[in-house]
Every structure is written in C-alpha cells, then in structure tokens.
C-alpha cells in the first residue's frame, strides 16, 4: 500500500515538473503506442509485431519503471517462475568452453543478423558482466561474475539457481535489465547449460 501511494505521489511531482498537457495516462499510452507502431512502418514487420505487442511483464515493467510496487514485483516473479523449463535429462551443466564463446558473442536478433540460418544467437554476457579475468573488455550494467561458482559453492542448489536465472532472470528479480535468455528463445537449452558451466565448472577460467 505504501509503495502505491509513493507511485501516485511520484507521478504528481512529475506531472508538475514535466508541464503536463492534460493527457490522461490512457491517452498518453494510446498516442505513444500509435506513433511507435507507425515509426516501424518500413522495418521488418515480424520484428515490429514482437515489439509493438508487449507481454505482461514488459508492460508492467514499463508502467512502473521508476517505482515498482511490491505487489507487482510478487506478481511478476510468480508468473515468470512458472515459465522456467529445467532440462528433462536433469543435467544443468554443459561445456564451459562453449559457454565462453556464447558469452563473447553478441550476434543475433538484430535486423541485420540475417542470412545465416544455422548460426545460433550469442548471449553477449561480457557486454554487461565481468566473467573470465583474461577478458578486460567487459561491461558494468550487471554485477561482476568473476569467481561465481568458487565463492558460492559448486552445489546442485546453486547450479539450479544459475540455470533458472539465465533462463528467466525476472523470476528472481522482477524488471531486471537482464534478458530472459531461455524464456524469450534467445539461447537454446544446450546454450544455457554451457553458460551455467562457464559460471559453475571448477575448471572454468571464471573460477580460477
């Protein structure tokens, strides 16, 4: 309830500071959605459809981008938790060497990433995270994952958590910046396992 009141108060402050036009939230949303759709008139229409239509988590995270009420957090984390598909064979770890390649690779799903039907998408983990210490060109949007497994313990619980987090990060942290790699079909099950190995294999450079 407190969070809700804070959101309303925040909106009122913004309305004053942002010189409100008198557009209601509904009108503002309808007009913004209309110009967004029109703005992709010449672009790839399959991609446009996936961008114009938000799923429930995207819509809620957009709406509450600057103040996320606790009940919305719970709602999102619950619905996203239900999407995680753990491997049928029970094996959560693949090959860390493949995981490292996936972590380096940012290819896939951009409108120029076409013409290579057999090429898998990358995970681009280094764009946001430090992982193996040899790679100096890493981003800082996400936390450092150096020594991830070593510091947390090479246990089944941690492996399961890591698999789920990569598969659908919003199940653990609603509206996180991290993509839902498994749920959104960015990475395959095998690729998710390989990235789990990069973080959790004692032989991975991440844990050296």
């Amino acid at each position, binding site marked *: 309830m407190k969070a809700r009141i804070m959101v309303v108060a925040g909106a009122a402050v913004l309305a004053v500071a942002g010189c409100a036009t008198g557009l209601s939230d509904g009108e503002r949303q309808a007009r913004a959605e209309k110009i967004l759709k029109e703005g992709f008139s010449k672009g790839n229409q399959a991609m446009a459809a996936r961008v114009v239509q*938000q799923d429930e988590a995207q819509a809620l995270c957009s709406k509450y981008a600057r103040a996320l009420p606790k009940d919305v957090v719970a709602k999102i984390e619950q619905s996203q938790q239900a999407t995680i598909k753990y491997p049928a064979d029970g094996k959560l770890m693949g090959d860390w060497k493949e995981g490292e390649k996936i972590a380096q690779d940012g290819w896939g799903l*951009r409108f*120029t990433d076409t013409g290579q039907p057999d090429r898998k998408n990358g995970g681009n983990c280094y764009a946001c995270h430090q992982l193996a210490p040899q790679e*100096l060109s890493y981003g*800082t949007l996400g936390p450092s994952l150096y020594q991830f497994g070593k510091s947390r313990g090479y246990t089944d619980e941690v492996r399961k958590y890591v698999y789920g987090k990569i598969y659908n990060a919003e199940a653990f942290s609603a*509206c996180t910046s991290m993509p839902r790699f498994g749920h959104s079909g960015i990475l395959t099950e095998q690729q998710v396992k390989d990235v789990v190995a990069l973080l959790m294999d004692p032989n991975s450079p991440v844990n050296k």
Partner: protein
Amino acid sequence: MRTNRPRAAFPGVAIAAAFLAWTPLPGNAQDRTAEEIEKYRRALAEGNPAELWEVRGEALWVAKRGPNNVSLEKCDLGLGAGVVKGAYAELPRYFADTDKVQDAESRLVSCMVTLQGFKEEDAKKNPFSAPGRHSDLEALTSYVASESKGMKMNAPIRHAKEIEAFELGEYLFYRRAGPHDFACSTCHADTGKRIRLQELPQLTNPKEAQQVFTTWPAYRVSQGSVRTMQHRLYDCYWQMRHPQLDYASDTATALMVFLAKYANGGEVNAPALKR
C-alpha cells in the same frame, strides 16, 4: 565562423576528457584503454573529417535543386525563413505550417518537399550514407548544426504539441519490448555504467545529456562517416533488437524532445568526433 572551427574543436576534447576522467573505470587495464582512446580522439579532433560534410552541406544549401530548381536558402528552420545561425540549438520545435514538432532532419525534409518540390519519399530515401554513397541529409544536417556552434541548446517545450512530444518521448524512453526486454532506460537511466568499454550516458542527468546531445551530428571513426541524431536513435533501436526506425518519424522526434529537456543549457559543439 570558419576561422572559429579549429578552435571550437578543443572545448569538445576537454569535455570528453573530463567525462572520461569522472567515469569510474575499475582496474588499470580499463584506465589505460580509455586513455589510449582519448589520445586517439585528441589526435583526430584537430582535423575532424566532419568539416568535409559541413562544406558539402553548405554547398547543397545554396544549390538550386529539385523539380522546382531552387535552393534551401528560404527554408525556415524555426528562426525565420533562411536563418541558419542558431537554429539547430533551438530544435526540435513546433512548426505551424506542418502542425508538427520537428527536429533539424525532419525539417530539412519538409523544406526539400515544399521549396524544392521533391516527393517526400525521394527526399527521405537516402538518410544515411554507405561506402561509396553520400547522404545529402547528413551533409545538410552537419552544416546546419555547425552554424550553432558555441550556442546554448534551448529547444522549446512550451507549445502544447511540444509538451505532448516530451510526454510521449518519456513514455517511449521507459518502454520495454522485444526479445531482450530492452528499453532506452536499460542502458541510459543510470550513471557510470558501461557496455564492454563504452561508457553509457545517463540521459536524464543534465550534465551527461548535454555532453551527448550537443555533440551530434558527429564523425564516427568506427563508421567512417558523419552520423546524425536520427541515425543514433536508429542504431540504438538496432542494438535493442527493435526494427528499423523510420527516418524522421514521430517516435524519433518525441524521443529527441525528451532528451532535449535534459540537454537544454549545454553548448552545441557539433559536428563532433566520436568512436
């Protein structure tokens, strides 16, 4: 104005250096890389290739072109017909004749249509250059921007349509979508963050927004060409796994008005030089 140009390049370098200096870069390796990139920028800034685009843009401005065989010299960029000086610093803004909020590029297209008689699709068909293919709009925008060098950004957010554009831009800035759930705010709502080694400006922070907004168009070393603000937004949406953003779309304008609110007050130093 021309004689000012080499001097005008230096404040930009100083600002860029200051920006890098207060961007926290953990570890010595990153510091060294940033230093090397900065040295490279400094070396190139003394002869920014964007000057070639400015000169070509000025020639295009006065050239008689299009079905009507007239120049753009009567184009109204917001400060009256034919006034180029200072116009870029006050864009985007509302224009009564089109009843739209327009940025510099959208307005140049309007002038090419109404004055020179081009069809709109022809005026917009080559907004971004490619190897072996110049873009007139990149050159014209470079020229127009260069005529506001040293002036303070002051894009008006007063007219009802300007205020509406700001509000729509704000909505779009925070809107998450696509396979990666990305919004503009995923990368640009926080300070001191990086993608790989690239620093990310917090675009709702006036200091950082000013540094970014006032330095487009820019010669991008990685692309070997001047790129404009329209291209910057198109490129962000590409990386966000969104589709190709239409040139001079209302979405682009709305986002620019949103950004301009925080960038207003910064000194125009475009065309600049960037990675």
